[in-house]
């Protein structure tokens, strides 16, 4: 509000003392926040420009020429037919991880926010946060050395009993350096961030709405379904998107676990079928010729575009029911 009391002899000095400083602070704060907003845009633009500029040679050179200099580039491929399976593999890994992690995260978050006694909830919250602090190399090691051996028999069982589903088509590879194993590790890695976001949103459900549901004769689960989950919808989507972003870009864990292949294949129990963009960049970067580096950066550009597209799609989903979001 800008309206001030009529200036009286007593009010004037107080106003003089306060207003200029307030204005100064106001301006400083506005500059800082505008600057931060502009900075993030600038960084994003710089990354995009870098990617496009460095990817340009690969995008404009015919595939056959790239293949002459770069050993791992298939001779009869164009850039698009090279990057296609990588995009597919990346999306497959991320979606599998998300399918496993999101329900589990919602369950953990609900337990922490609405079911567990307070002390257990606090302890569990710390434990989940701790999971987020483990570096991805460690996850990769754990996945490659322990998990691969552990899930092997389970995957074999899946292949023999559910093999008629294309996803689980056998024979299951031994050792289980396959997409499903990598996706399990990715799911564990993105679990903490999704859980943390969900937990915070669940805790912010207005008491008013929870009580409204309970007073109508809702059981605890019905109360969660009528009051908590609808309120948390956009928060859950945001959490899932943060997780998806991490899963899309995750390098080390996939690199260390997955036996790569370049096929459009849904066989997640077989080795040598898929590869992700990030893991492929890390695997090939060290001994790549200049045109090879440019090709890898072009695949990075593809990852950048995918991530942006996924995020925009998620925002659109959330915005579609904006009137019902409870934000008013």
């Amino acid at each position, binding site marked *: 509000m800008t309206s001030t009391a009529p200036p009286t002899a007593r009010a004037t000095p107080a106003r003089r003392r306060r207003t200029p400083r307030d204005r100064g602070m106001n301006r400083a704060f506005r500059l800082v926040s505008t600057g931060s907003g502009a900075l993030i845009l600038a960084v994003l633009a710089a990354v995009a420009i870098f990617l496009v500029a460095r990817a340009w040679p690969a995008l404009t050179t015919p595939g056959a020429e790239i293949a002459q200099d770069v050993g791992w580039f298939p001779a009869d491929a164009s850039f698009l037919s090279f990057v296609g399976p990588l995009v597919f593999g990346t999306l497959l890994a991320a979606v599998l991880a998300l399918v496993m992690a999101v329900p589990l995260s919602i369950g953990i978050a609900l337990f922490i926010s609405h079911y567990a006694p307070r002390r257990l909830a606090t302890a569990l919250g710390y434990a989940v946060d701790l999971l987020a602090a483990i570096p991805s190399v460690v996850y990769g090691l754990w996945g490659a050395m322990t998990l691969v051996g552990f899930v092997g028999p389970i995957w074999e069982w899946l292949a023999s009993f559910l093999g008629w589903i294309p996803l689980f088509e056998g024979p299951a590879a031994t050792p289980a350096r396959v997409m499903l194993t990598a996706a399990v590790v990715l799911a564990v890695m993105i679990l903490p961030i999704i859980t943390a976001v969900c937990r915070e949103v669940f805790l912010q459900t207005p008491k008013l*709405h929870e009580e409204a549901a309970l*007073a*109508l*004769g809702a059981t605890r689960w019905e109360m969660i379904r009528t*009051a908590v989950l609808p309120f948390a919808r956009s928060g859950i989507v945001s959490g899932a998107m943060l997780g998806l972003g991490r899963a899309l870009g995750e390098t080390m864990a996939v690199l260390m676990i997955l036996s790569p292949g370049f096929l459009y294949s849904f066989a997640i129990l077989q080795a040598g079928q898929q590869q992700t963009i990030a893991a492929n960049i890390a695997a090939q970067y060290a001994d790549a010729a200049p045109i090879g580096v440019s090709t890898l950066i072009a695949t990075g550009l593809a990852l950048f575009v995918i991530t942006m597209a996924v995020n925009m799609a998620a925002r659109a989903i959330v915005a579609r029911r904006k*009137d*019902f979001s*409870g934000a008013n």
Partner: protein
Amino acid sequence: MAQRIDVKDLDIYYGDFHAVADVSMTIDPRSVTAFIGPSGCGKSTFLRTLNRMHEVIPGARVEGTVAMEGVDLYGDDIDPVAVRRQVGMVFQRPNPFPTMSIQENVLAGVKLVNKRISKADAADLVEQSLVGANLWNEVKDRLDKPGAGLSGGQQQRLCIARAIAVKPDVLLMDEPCSALDPISTLAIEDLIAELKQSYTIVIVTHNMQQAARVSDRTAFFNIAGTGKPGRLIEMGDTGTMFSSPTEKATEDYISGRFG
């Protein structure tokens, strides 16, 4: 439909804190009973024990009996969820579910009990409940719009429609008008007068004129001091309570010589 409630020697505790002491009263069916008293005297807490909503707060417990038509609500085999279906509640601040449309809000409680209600039955029930809450004419053209888009008074009537849609026996109202403007308040008070034809209504209010206008019987609660439990001081016909109360404390409070 409407049922009589007998409360006998009720004590309410939050952990070690003795919140309300030794309340006994009878609440008549098809009437409006108002609870008045200063802030913190335990009238809202007591109201919440009538549908076991106080149990939402960890550590809350009661001693004594609350009997509805002879059945103790705190009996061993009584499920609080079932009690709350029988005893509806309207809160101080309007709380329609923000993610639901007007129609979904009205049906929210019904859907918990009867998941397969037919479209026609649902539409009938929505109309009947909204008519019952004096809101039908204002919202009949926008039943699929968000309930949170209504004005405060309309939202509160929507909450009343939601509460009566499950056909409870008793309707509890915890200061239902304290967040509303005078015109909306009037609309709710008119509604209360109509609803008492078919329900037992208990209302907590800070507004003494409101208690005098809407209620048949009035109960005055008071508290001796901070940390002491609230007590029921006096209960009687509203006319008598406001003209010639028996207790000095009641007279002081009603005439404004107190807190």
